[in-house]
C-alpha cells in the first residue's frame, strides 16, 4: 500500500488562492502542538507570536524593518529561482554589498563630504553584491561548477572577510578594542522615514523592487526568458536566449539586490560595521521567495509574515522562555505546509493498494 500523487485535470483558482491560508492554519496547529509538548500554552504562544507584535506600534515598525531586507533579497532570488538557478549565497552577497558600500562611508568619515556619499554607497552596495554574485555564475558558465556549492561556500568567505576587516584594518581605534568600525557620519546614514522612527528608506527600495520586478517578470521578454529557461531549457536556446547570459544576469540581479539590502541595513539600521550584520536574512529569504511562490507581491506578503515570526520569536524567548531555535523550526514548518498545500492544489493523493490486497 502506498500513496500516489496524480495531477488534477482542472485546478480551481479558489483552491489555489486559499492554499496559503490553509497552510498557515495547519502550520499554526503543528507549531501549537510542539509548544504544548514543551509544556507551554499554545494560546499564550499565539498571543505572543502573532497578536502582540501586530497590536504594538513599536513591533509594527520592527516588522517593516525586518521585512525590508527579506523582501529585497527574496525578490532578487526569485529571478534566479524562476530560471532554475539555485543561488544559495545571498547571505554572502548581502555581506559583500555591505562591505563595499561601507568602504566609502569609512573613507569619507570625518570629512566634509556632501550629499553624494549615501547614493554612492548604495550604488557600491549593489555593485559589491552583484560582483560577488557573478563569481558562482562565472564558475558555472565557464567551468560547469554547481552554483549551489560555490554560492553557499562563498557565504563563509564573505563573512570571514567582514570579520577580518572589523577586527583588523577597519576597527574603530577609539572603540575600546571592540570589533567594530566607527559609527557612520550622518551623510553616510540612510535616514528614517519618520523622525525618531526606526523604519528607514530601505522600505521604499523593497517596494520599488517588488513593483519593477512584477512588471519585468510578467510583461517583458526578459521575464519570459527566465520562465522559459527554467521550464524548458532547450526551448529557451531554440528561442535564441543565451543561457550563459541568462545565468550571469540573474546572479547579478539577485546579488545586487542582496547587496542593496546589506548596505541599507548597515547604513540605515546598524550605523557601523560589526562582525555580524544579519540574523541570516540571506538564507531566510530563500524561504520567503518560495513562500511567496516566486511572485513579487506574494514575496512582499511572505516577507512580512516571516518577519513576524522573527519578532514573535524574540518576544517568545523573553516572555515564555521558548528557545529562539523554535522560530527557525516554525519557519521550516510554514514553508513545508505552503509547499504541501500548493502540491495538493495541483495534485490529488491516491491510495494505491497492491494487486494482492483486494
Amino acid at each position, binding site marked *: 500500500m502506498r500513496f500516489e500523487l496524480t495531477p488534477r485535470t482542472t485546478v480551481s483558482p479558489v483552491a489555489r488562492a486559499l492554499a496559503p491560508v490553509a497552510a498557515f492554519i495547519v502550520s499554526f496547529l503543528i507549531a501549537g502542538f510542539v509548544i504544548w509538548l514543551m509544556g507551554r500554552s499554545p494560546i499564550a504562544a499565539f498571543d505572543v507570536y502573532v497578536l502582540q507584535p501586530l497590536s504594538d506600534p513599536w513591533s509594527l515598525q520592527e516588522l517593516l524593518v525586518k521585512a525590508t531586507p527579506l523582501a529585497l533579497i527574496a525578490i532578487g532570488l526569485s529571478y534566479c529561482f524562476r530560471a532554475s538557478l539555485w543561488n544559495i549565497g545571498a547571505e554572502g552577497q548581502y555581506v559583500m554589498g555591505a562591505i563595499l558600500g561601507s568602504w566609502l562611508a569609512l573613507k569619507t568619515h570625518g570629512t566634509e563630504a556632501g550629499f553624494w556619499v549615501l547614493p554612492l554607497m548604495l550604488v557600491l552596495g549593489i555593485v559589491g553584491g552583484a560582483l560577488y554574485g557573478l563569481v558562482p555564475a562565472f564558475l558555472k558558465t565557464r567551468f560547469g561548477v554547481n552554483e549551489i556549492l560555490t554560492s553557499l561556500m562563498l557565504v563563509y568567505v564573505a563573512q570571514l572577510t567582514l570579520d577580518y576587516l572589523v577586527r583588523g584594518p577597519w576597527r574603530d581605534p577609539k572603540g575600546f578594542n571592540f570589533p567594530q568600525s566607527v559609527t557612520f557620519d550622518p551623510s553616510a546614514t540612510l535616514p528614517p522615514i519618520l523622525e525618531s522612527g526606526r523604519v528607514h528608506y530601505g522600505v521604499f527600495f523593497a517596494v520599488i523592487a517588488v513593483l519593477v520586478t512584477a512588471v519585468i517578470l510578467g510583461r517583458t521578454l526578459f521575464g519570459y526568458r527566465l520562465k522559459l529557461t527554467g521550464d524548458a531549457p532547450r*526551448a529557451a536556446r531554440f528561442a535564441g536566449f543565451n543561457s550563459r547570459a541568462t545565468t550571469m544576469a540573474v546572479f547579478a540581479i539577485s546579488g545586487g539586490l542582496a547587496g542593496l539590502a546589506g548596505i541599507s541595513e548597515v547604513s540605515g539600521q546598524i550605523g557601523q560595521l560589526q562582525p555580524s550584520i544579519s540574523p541570516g536574512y540571506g538564507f531566510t529569504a530563500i524561504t520567503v521567495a518560495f513562500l511567496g511562490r516566486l511572485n513579487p507581491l506574494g514575496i512582499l506578503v511572505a516577507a512580512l509574515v516571516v518577519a513576524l515570526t522573527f519578532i514573535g520569536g524574540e518576544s517568545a524567548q523573553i516572555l515564555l522562555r521558548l528557545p529562539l531555535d523554535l522560530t527557525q523550526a516554525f519557519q521550516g514548518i510554514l514553508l513545508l505546509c505552503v509547499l504541501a498545500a500548493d502540491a495538493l492544489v495541483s495534485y490529488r493523493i491516491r491510495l494505491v493498494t497492491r494487486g494482492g490486497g483486494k
Partner: protein
Amino acid sequence: MKADVSSSGPPLVELKGISKRYGDLLANDGIDLSIEPGEIHALLGENGAGKSTLVKILYGVIEPSAGEIRWEGRPVAIGSPVEARALGLGMVFQHFSLFDELTVAENIAVALSGEWNLATVRGKLGEISRTYGLALDADRAVWTLSAGERQRIEIVRCLLQNPRLLILDEPTSVLTPQEAEHLFATLDKLSADGCSILYISHKLEEVRRLCRRATILRAGRVVGTIDPRASTAREIAALMVGSEVGEIRTDAPHVPHGEILRVDHLDMPPAGLHGQALKDVNLVVRAGEVVGIAGVAGNGQSELFAALSGERLAERADAITIAGRACGTTGIDARRRLAAAFVPEERLGHAAAPTHRLSENTLISHAATEVSRSGFILLSAAKRLARTIIKSFDVRTPEGDPQARKLSGGNLQKFVIGREIIRKPKLLVVDQPTWGVDAGAARLIRQALVDLARDGSAVVVVSQDLDELFEVADQMAVIHQGSLSPLKPIGEWTKEAVGLEMLGVAQAQGGAHAV
C-alpha cells in the same frame, strides 16, 4: 505457452464499454476491444481519437469513468502500472521515460522490481539484445543515445519481464527501415511464443504487415474492427479520418528561383561523446523547392538541424548563407530575422515549452514575430497570433489557450509548424515534420510544406520517412555518418538508390559529392 488465435478459450484481455470523460470531452466513448492470446492487434486512429487514453486505462495510468476490463475472462481493476505489470502487461511508450544521466543497464534495473539488479540485468541484456537484434551497450549513458536506441531500452525493459501483453505506442516512428524490420521479426517471434501485442501505429503498411485484426477509433468511438490485409490502405485511412484521404498536391510545376540557402563545406565537431560530426556538407536550396534530407537516425540529422538553425555555430561565417547573408557564426535570432524559420524534431521541450500556454509559446520565435516591442511582451498580439495559428492549421485544442502539453502530438505539431509557416518565411528547415503524427495531421502538414514552397519559399525537410520525402520533395539528398550525398531531383532517385546511400554503400563505390 503455445496459443492459437482461434482458440475457444476466453480472450486474454477484453475491454467492455470503456468510457473516459475529461470535463466536457468524452475521450473514450463505450469502447469494446478484445485481444486473443498470441494475437498482434492493431489500434488505429488519428491523434485525439482516444488511443492514448484507452491504452493508459489498460495500463493502469488513468481510471476509466465507466466500463470493465476482463483479464482471461475475469474482471480486474488495474489501479496502477505496477499492478498492470504484475498481471503481465508491458508498455513501450512513445515518449520515453528514461533517466538521461544513467546508463542503459541502470535505467533498466531501476524500473524493475525485486530480483533484478545491475548484474542480472547486464547478463540478460546481452541475451535479449542478440535474440531480438536490439543492439545496446549496457554502460552507455542514455543522454548519448539516439531516439531509436532509447526506444530499444524501453522494449528490452519490457521483454525482460516476460509480458503476456505488450503494448507498443508508435514504435517505428523513430526506427530505420531495417530496425523496423528487426522489430517486426521480434514481434512475430513474441507472438509465436504466445505473447499478445497491442500495436498502435499510424503507418498502415506496418499494420498490414503485422496484424490480422485492427480496431479503428475515431473521436473516442470504435468505428470498426477489420482485417487490415483484406482492406486497402486507402479504405483504412478513410475509416480513420472519416473521409477519403486526398493525395498531396505536388503536380504544380516546380519552378526554382533564386538561391536562398547555401551550405558550403560545413564541418562541425560532434555535440556529445557519441554525437555525429558533420563532414564537408554542401547544399544549395532555391526558392520554390522542397529539398528532402533522408537518412537513418543518428547520422547527423540533429547536428545538421542545429547548424542550419544556428543553435550551434559554424567556424566560418560563409559556411552557411541564408538569403545572401553569410551567417554561419550568427545565432538563431539573427537567422530568424533573415526570414528563416525552424521546426526541431522534439515537439515538447524543444519546439514548445510543455507547461506554457500556446500564446506564450508564440514568443519562442519572438525574434521574427510581432509579439514583443522594445523588450515588452504584447500579450494580446500573442493571443491573437495563437488563435490565428489554431484556426489556420486546424489545431484541435481542449480549451481556448491551453498549455502545450495538453495537446495531442499531431495537434501540437500542427501548431509549431503553423507558428513558423504563418509568417511566410523565405526558408523553412523542419526536422521530422510528421514524427508520430496521425494520417490526417501528416497530410495537412505535408500539404502546408508543399504550398509554402510553391508560394516561393525554400523548404528543407529532414525526415526518416522515405514515403514522406518522395511525396513532398523536389530534390533529395541522403545523410550518412555526417556526410551528405549529392542532391538529385526526386525523379532520379529510386528507393534502392536511397537505401544504398543510407547504408553508405554508394559512397564506397565512389562518386565525388559535388553539389
